[in-house]
């Protein structure tokens, strides 16, 4: 047993790739070795920007002997078959064994592979691992790259250490021979260093200013960055992504705190934080009141001769230039009102078939206004909803969002507030992309809800209109996410409406716009001088009138198509939403089959029914009733029955069921109507006893056809009564 060390040293590996590279190295190493019959024990993998290291402890020096058995043809098989087999296993006939297999003599080839020295295995495995390394992006380099067959790697590979115990594993790839030598820190220790074994590797590197264990560097950055902030009387804004990135950029991390000009704090704090993080990989700090402070923490890769003074000064200058740019964008953007910015959206294509972003904005505005004026979003001023929707995408053309796309919405909110627009409008612009994922805050402010919901309904509707629906793993326009967002908005805010109907607006709008564009293209001549054909229905009608003679038939046809298509899409969208609802409710423990059993185009009511029903089904009454229902449904499925038949002389249990149904049926129906779902369930529960007793003592399949028909009819009546509440046939169990 010995410990094995592998170091692959190369020019700076991108920080973002190091975690993946560590996992890949371990995986490839295990795979290569287990193929050779070696099972490595504990493996440690480390990375710095300049090296990947793997240490395998307690490594066997000899592989296990393996006996490989291959079954061959039966005795008496054709010579051809036998020869083929001998070729395959590389043996001669007299080396084969004959064994009895299900009473038949069969050839077997048994090849004993003796154990090999592990150093041979490793010498083959290392080049294979290097060649198989799945870097996200790789390159060729140097003189060898005269051929495109030369090794590809993330950056030029510089050296290989491979030591088993204290012995060198000799291997070579692309003229790099394995050895004992590596390099220390680029600047603190520029010369070569010699490693003796896995045991002294980390310590020797540490002595040469390299902390090879990435977790140690991460811990150090976390602690010292915190300490630097608190020494300045501030609190570090924790950022685990930055910790990992900085650890991936340094071999000897030294966090240093610097200050920037307080005047930059006029710029929104999110912008400062983003600039510092994305462009410079700096942490930011907060003061005691939790406000962003004029301080940053950068992570240097050296123990500077002057204690870091020059480094901090340099970084401060760079950040100042970045913040000047950000302030320039901020001030520039403030000069142009959002309404004016929104006009520029006419030049941005939303989708080739769906027109510009300005077209989308107009549809969203119309829908948001409708949601408000119909009272679907309660207490929402329709004019504010329209205004907020009209401006919600305007920040996409601002300088700041051009620079930092992730600030979309947020910047619009700032600019709206700075312009003095109604705070409800500013908030709606800021938050209308929400909720972005499960767990994100769901807006509750009415204007925000209207705009956010309209935006999502529009996106879903128009992509369905042009048949760009999500399929399988493909959802290029993130319609599933939009649907989840819309469902959260509707449920969280208790928005009561026939939601599939809301899609009619964008579907018709887009359908007519596309139809108008098509007709305009086909009848360009006839339309000359008329100006553009409007997409709103009333103007559309008058336009039809004025050019009736020329193109009325074509337009009528298209308008009918649009209507028919819209209706078709609405039903597809309903199904799509039902699926999304199941996904969304899964975590809350709501059963998908119960969602399937309830049909309701009001999502809030649907979910209330589902909740009541799921609770009911879980109760003994519910479970028994479901069993009774299934039994009734099975019988009905098998038998023919005449609707309307009645038994003039029912047995007592039969009579009891008839009476119970006469009460419970209407009661369940009216309770559902009154949204008293507990009441509806209670009404159903009252049927449990009678249906159980009915099955207990009454024979449905009576010899008398009239009785049989009447009893089948009775079961159907029972089924109809249950269907007042839900389609129990969809419920499992």
């Amino acid at each position, binding site marked *: 047993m010995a410990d094995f060390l592998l170091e692959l040293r190369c020019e700076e590996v991108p920080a*973002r790739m190091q975690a993946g590279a560590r996992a890949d190295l371990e995986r490839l190493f295990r795979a290569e070795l287990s193929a050779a019959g070696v099972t490595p024990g504990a493996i440690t993998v480390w990375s710095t920007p300049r090296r990947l290291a793997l240490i395998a402890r307690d490594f066997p020096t000899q592989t296990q002997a393996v006996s490989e058995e291959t079954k061959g043809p039966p005795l008496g098989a054709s010579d051809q078959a036998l020869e083929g087999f001998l070729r395959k296993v590389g043996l001669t006939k007299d080396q084969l064994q004959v064994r009895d297999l299900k009473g038949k003599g069969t050839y077997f080839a048994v090849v004993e592979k003796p154990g090999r020295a592990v150093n041979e295995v490793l010498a083959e495995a290392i080049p294979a691992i290097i060649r198989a390394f799945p870097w996200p992006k790789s390159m060729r380099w*140097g003189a060898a*790259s005269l051929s495109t067959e030369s090794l590809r790697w993330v950056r030029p590979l510089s050296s290989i250490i491979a030591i088993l115990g204290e012995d060198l594993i000799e291997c070579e790839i692309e003229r790099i021979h394995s050895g004992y030598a590596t390099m220390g820190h680029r*600047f603190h220790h520029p010369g070569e260093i010699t490693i003796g074994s896995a045991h002294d590797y980390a310590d020797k590197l540490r002595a040469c200013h390299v902390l090879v264990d990435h977790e140690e560097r991460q811990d150090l950055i976390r602690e010292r960055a915190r300490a630097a902030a608190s020494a300045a009387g501030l609190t570090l804004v924790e950022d685990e992504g930055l910790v990992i990135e900085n650890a991936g950029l340094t071999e000897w991390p030294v966090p240093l705190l610097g200050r920037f000009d307080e005047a930059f704090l006029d710029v929104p704090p999110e912008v400062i934080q983003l600039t510092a993080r994305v462009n410079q990989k700096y942490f930011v700090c907060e003061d005691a009141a939790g406000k962003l402070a004029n301080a940053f923490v950068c992570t*240097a*890769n050296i123990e*500077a001769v002057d204690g870091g003074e020059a480094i901090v000064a340099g970084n401060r200058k760079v950040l100042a230039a970045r913040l000047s740019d950000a302030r320039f964008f901020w001030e520039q953007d403030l000069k142009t009102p959002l309404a004016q910015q929104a006009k520029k959206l006419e*030049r941005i*294509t939303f989708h080739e078939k769906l027109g510009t972003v300005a077209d989308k904005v107009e549809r969203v505005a119309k829908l948001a206004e409708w949601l408000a004026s119909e009272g679907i979003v309660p207490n929402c001023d329709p004019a504010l909803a329209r205004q907020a929707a009209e401006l919600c995408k305007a920040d996409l053309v601002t300088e700041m969002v051009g620079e930092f796309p992730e600030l979309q919405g947020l910047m619009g909110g700032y600019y709206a507030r700075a312009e003095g627009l109604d705070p409800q409008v500013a908030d709606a612009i800021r938050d209308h992309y929400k909720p972005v994922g499960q767990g994100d805050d769901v807006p509750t402010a009415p204007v925000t809800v209207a705009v956010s919901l309209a935006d999502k309904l529009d996106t879903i509707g128009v992509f369905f209109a042009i048949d760009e629906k999500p399929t399988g793993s493909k959802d290029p326009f993130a319609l599933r996410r939009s649907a989840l967002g819309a469902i959260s908005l509707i449920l969280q805010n208790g928005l009561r409406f026939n939601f599939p109907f809301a899609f009619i607006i964008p579907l018709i709008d887009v359908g007519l716009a596309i139809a108008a564009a098509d007709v305009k293209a086909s009848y360009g001549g006839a339309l000359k001088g008329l100006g553009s054909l409007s997409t709103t229905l009333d103007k559309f009608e008058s336009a039809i009138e004025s050019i009736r003679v020329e193109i009325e038939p074509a337009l009528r046809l298209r308008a009918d198509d649009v209507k028919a298509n819209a209706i078709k899409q609405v039903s597809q969208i309903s199904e799509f939403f039902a699926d999304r609802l199941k996904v969304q409710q899964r975590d809350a423990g709501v059963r998908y089959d119960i969602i399937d059993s309830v049909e309701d185009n009001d999502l809030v009511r649907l979910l209330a029914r589902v909740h009541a029903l799921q609770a009911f089904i879980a109760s003994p009454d519910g479970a028994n009733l479901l069993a009774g229902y299934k039994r009734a449904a099975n019988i009905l499925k098998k038998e023919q029955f005449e609707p309307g038949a009645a038994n003039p002389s029912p047995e007592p249990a039969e009579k009891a069921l008839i009476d119970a149904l006469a009460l419970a049926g209407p009661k369940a129906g009216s309770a559902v109507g009154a949204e008293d779902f507990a009441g509806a369930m209670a009404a159903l529960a009252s049927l449990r006893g009678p249906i159980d007793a009915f099955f207990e003592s009454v024979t449905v399949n009576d010899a008398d056809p009239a009785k049989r028909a009447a009893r089948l009819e009775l079961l159907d009546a029972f089924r109809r009564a249950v269907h007042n509440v839900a389609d129990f046939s969809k419920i499992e169990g």
Partner: protein
Amino acid sequence: MANTAAPLSFQDMILTLHSFWSARGCLILQPYDMRMGAGTFHPATTLRALGPEPWNAAYVQPSRRPTDGRYGENPNRLQHYYQYQVILKPNPPNLQELYLESLVAIGIDPLAHDIRFVEDDWESPTLGAWGLGWEVWCDGMEVTQLTYFQQVGGYDCKPVAGELTYGLERLAMYLQRKDRYHDLAFNSPDSPLGAASYGDVFLANEQQMSKYNFEIADTDALFAGFKAAEAECMRCLDADIPLAAYDQAIEASHLFNLLQARGVISVQERASYIGRVRDLAKGSCEKWIAVNSDRWAAEYDGWSA
């Protein structure tokens, strides 16, 4: 190399880099005499990066980015600035170390300043070129781009060339501890004929050229010029003179940049113009390979594009 107390002036920094790279075997070329957006456009990089022959050259290239103009008012942004470009084909194994030595030569102490290689892959859609490498940070400031060229003009680089692009004004601002490019010492303060700042030399340029780029340039003439360059490039390609064709690609690229600065190219048109410039550049590269490939294949056994 000595880390002298007084930082190098702008011109001494260039002279130091020239002698540094000259001593390491580079041809010291002069700037290309055409308007271009970056040192990479110089045919000594674009065309010479193709083919098997070793090629080692260094030069300063004035670079014009019309949209970056700020009328001389922004302390960091210029529409005309200088890049120091080094191209080494094939890249030597110690490319990074050579580069770091050059920083020491111009006065950067790597134990006082934090120098880092941060992932930055380079791509030029107009040249059909890409490579992997880093931006080099000095105390958080990007001072150089280091790239291993993988493809140029859509062709694999065989072998790969290493390219260094130093941002001279940034490096000088850094070395001289100046916050505005205007204040850079262009020559030595004790120059016998008087000291000049970068602003003395270039401020008027920035002011006038920003005005020209954003307000004055005749867009009809630019559109016509673009078309003419495109046509001329094609004629040169037909005549098997890729170097002349490539000049026209450079011209078209700059005219496109000017049209962008004038704000007359829409988002949709932009992609199509970039595609047209790329076709010219790729066509020139293709022809460059075509006229040389027989010789290359003869001199470098088995070489093929």
